Each structure stands twice: as C-alpha cells, then as structure tokens.
C-alpha cells in the first residue's frame, strides 16, 4: 500500500522529517505516537501533497505509484485520505454540497456515474447516524461553528463516505469525550477491511484500546525511533518520552 523510504522534508526551509522509513501493507493499522512537534502532522501533510512542504530526499510509493509526483487532488482521488487535526471552516458551503462534490470527484476517477442528490442524501444520512451527528449537520456550513468534537466526527463521516484506501487520522481522538471517542473508534473499526490501511496518529494509548493497531511507531525528531506492537503504546503511557532525550540527540548528531 505505502512504502516510505528515507524521507526528508522541510517547511519554510526548516527540515522536519529527517530520514523516515515506513512500510504499510493493505489492511494494516499503524499507530504513530510521539512528542509534540515531532513531525507527525507534517508527515500527513507531506503524504497528502500540501503546498509548502518540500521533499528533499527519499521516495514514497503508494499502490505501486510514485506518490510524490502526484497533485494533491490526484492523491486524494487515488484513495489517500487525511482527517485533519484542526479542520478548517468553509462558511456558506453546506457539508452536504461539499461532500457530494468530493464523493463525485472520487467516482469520476473510478469511471462511475455521479450520484444524484437523492442517492447521495441517503448515504450521507447513514454516515451521519454512524458518527452520531444530528442530520442538520448536513445542511450546516462545512465545520462552521462546529465544536471541536463535532469537527472530528465530521472528518470521520467524510472518511466513511469517501471509502479511501489509506486513511491518515491526525489526532482524531483529541478533545473528544468518552462517548465521542467510542463513536470515532467505531467509525474507524467499521471501515477496517483487508484492502484498507490506516495511519492513526495519537497521543493516547486509550484510543488504541478501541482501535487495535498492528504496529505502533514512535516518531521523534523527524524519524521513527522505535517500532513495536500494541504493547509499545502501553510502555509510552507509563514512561513518557523522556527516554528519547539521548536517543534523538544521537540521531540528530
């Protein structure tokens, strides 16, 4: 699904990703943890092609294609989905309209007819229920005035509707109450399949009680410094990242 080799990337001339390797097979769930400022969100932006994020070295293969060659929207249409840590508002554009356009953009890529308003509405209502948002969220402007938790659930709703191949969830659990956390986790679990892979960025082991990862990676100072299974998350929960101190210095030197 995704093969990242020796990736180096910078923003505003500041190198953030410093030689990152990661291999993800179809159907796998990889959790990424790591201290604030380690480069977790940056990795998501680099993979999705955001402007201003320059790759200076390394390669990324997505479904056998050179990901770095593609435009943002091409990557999205190939099935790369990013759930934002801080979803932005688009006033006046209804959630419904926005998602219909994007679902149809994906369908077009797959050579499918666009969904009619009625067909889409039916799907959207189901997705809305699945993440436990009232139906009037479909009519409201994209993220307009949504609470933090509502924005996160709205991202998961989009993921459900778009049926991506690779989902990158950037702290979809932060700021959620216990019930919402379960809703988000259930949303993700319902989408798990042998063809779909996930990168779950989180600070809390708790989420991983609900979404069982196949691998856990610790990202620090722009690279993956430790990988393991779900138990690694428990270790982190106990010990924090202090132990990284020397290690990342070594790596930086």
């Amino acid at each position, binding site marked *: 699904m995704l093969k990242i080799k020796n990736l180096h990337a910078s923003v505003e001339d500041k190198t953030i990703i410093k030689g990152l390797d990661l291999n993800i097979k179809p159907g796998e769930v990889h959790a990424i943890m790591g201290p604030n400022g380690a480069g977790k969100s940056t990795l998501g932006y680099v993979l*999705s092609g*955001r*402007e*201003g994020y320059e790759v200076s070295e390394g390669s990324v293969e997505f479904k056998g294609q050179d990901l770095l060659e593609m*435009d*943002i*929207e091409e990557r*999205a*249409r190939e099935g790369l*989905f*990013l759930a*934002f840590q801080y*979803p*932005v*508002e*688009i*006033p*006046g*554009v*209804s959630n419904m*309209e*926005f*998602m219909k*356009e*994007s679902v149809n*953009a*994906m369908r077009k*890529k797959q050579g499918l007819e666009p969904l009619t308003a009625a067909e889409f509405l039916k799907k959207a209502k189901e997705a809305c229920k699945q993440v436990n948002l009232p139906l009037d969220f479909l009519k409201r*402007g*994209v993220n307009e005035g949504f609470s933090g938790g509502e924005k996160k659930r709205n991202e998961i709703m*989009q993921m459900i509707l*778009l049926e991506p191949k690779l989902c990158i969830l950037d702290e979809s659990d932060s700021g959620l109450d216990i019930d919402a956390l379960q809703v988000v986790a259930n949303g993700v679990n319902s989408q798990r399949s042998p063809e779909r892979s996930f990168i779950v960025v989180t600070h809390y082991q708790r989420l991983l009680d609900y979404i069982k990862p196949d691998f856990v990676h610790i990202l620090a100072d722009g690279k993956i410094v430790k990988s393991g299974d779900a138990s690694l998350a428990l270790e982190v929960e106990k010990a924090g990242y202090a132990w990284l101190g020397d290690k990342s210095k070594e790596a930086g030197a």
Partner: protein
Amino acid sequence: MSEQIEQALARKYEAGFVSNIESETFAVGLDEEVIRRISTMKNEPEWMLQWRLKAYESWLKMEEPEWAHLHYPKIDYQSISYYSAPKSMKDKPKSLDEVDPELLRTYEKLGIPLHEQQMLAGVAVDAVFDSVSVVTTFREKLEEAGVIFCPISEAVHKYPELVKKYLGTVVPRSDNYFAALNSAVFTDGSFVYIPKGVRCPMELSTYFRINEQNTGQFERTLIVADEGSHVSYLEGCTAPQRDENQLHAAVVELVAMDNAKIKYSTVQNWYPGDEEGKGGIYNFVTKRGICHNNAHISWTQVETGSAITWKYPSCVLKGDNSVGEFYSVALTRGRQQADTGTKMIHLGKNTKSTIISKGISAGRSNNAYRGLVQMGPNSDGARNFTQCDSLLIGDQCGAHTFPYIESRNPSAIVEHEATTSKVSDEQLFLCQQRGLDAEKAVSMIVNGFCKEVFKELPMEFAVEAGKLLEISLEGSVG
C-alpha cells in the same frame, strides 16, 4: 498566496465576440444637433425632445463626480458615438421572422434564444442591441394580463401619458452628471407597467448588448407597479472584447405604488478589460426606486463585469411601512474597479431596509462598498440592517467599506456588521484533499460566501449567476 488560486482566476470572457452586423452609427461627438438627431431617429414627439434638451443644458453645467474610489483617465465625451442601430432594424420588423438572423444568432450565442418556443418558459425578454430594442417576446401573453412590456422608445408613442407622468420622477433629469447625460441621449431600454392588483404572470427581463465600437450605451428603464401589483424583472448585459473603453450610463427608475412589490435583479457581465486593464466597459449607472405605503422594492445584483463600476441602486422609502432591500455580489479581478452599494432613504414610519453586500476581490482589483442609510425626521420606528462582507483572494487586491449613517429620528434603529475574510490556503487544501481541483474549490468557496444573495435571485437565474461566477473564476488552459 498560492499559485493555484491565481491560475484558477485566469478568466476567459465568453461573451467577448463581435457580431458582424451592418449598422447605422452616428459620427462621434455630442452637441444639441446630435440630440435632435437621436430624437428624430426615434421619431419622437416634441415634448420628449424638449425634455432631452433641458437635460443636456443641465449636464453642460455639471461636473463629473470624483468622490468614488475609482481611478481612470478622463472620459472624452466628444470621442463617443451616441447612436448606433443595426440597419435591418430601420423599417421595424413586424415579427421575429423579419429580424436579421445574425442578430438572433448573437443572442442565441449568449444563451438568450429569442424564439419563444426555445425560451425559458415563464420569462419574457426585451433584447436591446446597441441603441435599439430588437425584439420583445411574449407581448401578447402579457397584454392579456394588462401588463405593458415594451421598448421605452415605443412607450413614448403608445403610452405618452404614462411616460410623461413617471419619467424623471424618481431620478430627476439633473440628479447627477451621468443621469443628466443619460436623460439627454438615452436611446432605448424597457418600459413596464403593471396595472392595479395584477401579479405579472411571468418574469420580465431585458438583455443589453453593446456591439459597435466607440459607441456608448445609454439605456433607460422605467418600471411602474400600480397599487397592489407584483413584478419580478431581470437585467443582463454583455459586450465584445475590445481594447478601447466603452461608456455605459444607464438610468433605471422604479415606482412601487401602495402595496406593490418590485423585485429587480441584475446579472452584469460587461467586458471587464484584459489582465493589464486594457479595454472594458465604464459602467456609470443610476438606479433608484420609490416605495409608497406598504410597498416593497428589492434590488439584487450580481456584478462580475465592467472595468469600472459606479452604481448605487437605492430605495426612497416614502410610504409608511414600506420595505427596501439590497442584495449584492460584486466580484472584481484583474484590474477591475468597483465602487458600488446602495442608499436607503427612510422617510415614512416603520420603514424597513436590509442591505447584504458581498464583495469579492481578486488579482489587482479594487472593490468598494459605499452605502448610505438615512433616517428622516418622520421615520418613527424605522429599521435598517446592513451586513457588508468582503472576501479577498490573493494579496494584491483591495476591499474598502464606506458606510454612511445619518439619523434624524431617535426611534430609528440602524445596525451595521462588517467582516473581511480571505480564501485561505487551508480551505483550498481541505477541498483538494477531498478530491476537488483548485478551480472548483475556489468557485465553491466563493459561492458559499455569496449564498445569502443568490437565494434572493429568481430561481432560473440563481443557477445562471452561480455559473457566471464559476466562469469568471475559471482558469482557461494556456
């Protein structure tokens, strides 16, 4: 600002073609003789000529206004031709079959087929080409309802009493420099009269097209809605792509008698000039309506064209409980400049007005909202609500807001809200991450911003307006 937005904005102007039509065009220049000749061409009665000449006299004494936030070289009024008409229109075609097919094709290309069977059902059209009305559709059907919808040049002959009674009563001949010029040299436009208690059975619309080079278009529209009547009217306009600037100075007068309602919508798409600001229409327009008791006038405008826009559709709320509304979307890009807004003059008791203005500036354009809310001494209980939002695309454009509030009645309430926002890289990125291309993303964000105004447009045209914005924002390949 991202390159993609810039690309998404590289606009093509689809109405920029020139029709090859043989015209009779006056030599450039303006004097009393020219006005007499216009009047003769139109076969006008003496009173109409005298009216024009008085306007001309006032115009000569007036100064071109300079207070607007607009910069352009001085207009040379002697280098403009004040009359141009297709030769084929000389002996007034009786039916559509007699109209020059090239003229019909021009409108068809613009998406306005004039054959009734091909038209949008429920919309009657008056097509004005340079200085004359080419055809007015569905007239019989309208006449059955008692509605008069015809070129104003024809109304002068057929309904002189109505024209004499109302012409210049809302926008006096010497109201302002451009209105005075228009009063002297106006050539055609539409006349509408809705009798008492009649709800006009279809949308009325006039489509203005400037074709000839170096000519100005000076149209005059007069709409009278008698007591308790209703009418919805739409105006559209385009011009070919030319390197020279062309002048358009129109006057629109609306009269809403007691309990009447007029909804006037404009989709203005005059040629805006090229990227560097070469060419384009200078649009200096005076639009005003008067509301008698319980009457309601609603102006909705979508302005995407013209190199220069100077336009303030206004309401004089003379009658008690009357209502004035102004909903505006003005989009400027390239080197376009717009200074537009409204005046709400509250004279009667419990009068209400609403102003929603959405300005979108891109490229190196300048977009100004200028609005006056005036509460007269007798406007007890009057209310105004103004919301004025600007959206910036890129960082080389300008948005300006000039709200003027004058209240002479302590019981009147005036509310004003203003916001300025940008199409952000984050918004664009979100859209693209969801599979939309930059063009689609920008037009969707802009459409969302304009939503409150678009919902005021007649249904058939809301879609059109959305499309127009999309085209205006569309990046052409190469």
